[in-house]
């Protein structure tokens, strides 16, 4: 089954609003969580990551929230801008296991001016 799930294939937000992207995972051993951003015809790049010893991490307009009991993490983007329009991929991994990530299917974020 899918170990990392992004249930929303797409999300449209007005410019200046808050974009909230969600990700659910199944594996209890996952303790590393990341969000990657991908523009069309470009490669994914890391936006922000968090370990399971914290439940929140902020970096500028980006905040990751981790809910371990609910096996859920989310990315909040404040003051959303048209250049935030991209595909956002969540990923998770087990730092005590294989050095690999499991990715979700991605959410297309569209910021409307």
């Amino acid at each position, binding site marked *: 089954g899918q170990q990392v799930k*992004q249930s929303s294939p797409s999300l449209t937000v007005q410019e200046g609003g808050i974009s909230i992207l969600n990700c659910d995972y199944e594996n209890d051993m996952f303790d*590393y969580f990341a969000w990657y951003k991908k523009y069309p*015809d470009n490669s994914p*790049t*890391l936006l922000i990551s968090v370990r399971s010893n914290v439940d929140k991490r902020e970096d500028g307009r980006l905040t990751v929230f981790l809910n371990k009991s609910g096996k859920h993490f989310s990315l909040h983007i404040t003051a959303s801008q048209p250049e935030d329009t991209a595909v956002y991929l969540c990923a998770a991994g087990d730092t005590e296991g294989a*050095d*690999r990530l499991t990715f979700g299917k991605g959410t297309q974020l569209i910021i409307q001016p």
Partner: protein
Amino acid sequence: EAAVTQSPRNKVAVTGGKVTLSCNQTNNHNNMYWYRQDTGHGLRLIHYSYGAGSTEKGDIPDGYKASRPSQENFSLILELATPSQTSVYFCASGDRLGQDTQYFGPGTRLLVL
């Protein structure tokens, strides 16, 4: 800046033919990865490697082989290409999960006719 390069960038192959996709990294990372990206599937891990001489199966290894002859190079081999292997392939390099991000190459667009 971390550097991962892939060749070729575009490839057209015939069904039943052999295809080799090459990846080179100058990051001195121990780990390297091959993913494919398809609409509706996100990034799926095909094979990965922990160092020269090592290859590990990812989530969708069937129909693919991998070779890691050196720290810098990691190849993905399709011995008998099929149209279902038409996709965009990304190579990535990284170190211990959580200690560094995965850096992705620019991708190879493969069309199997």
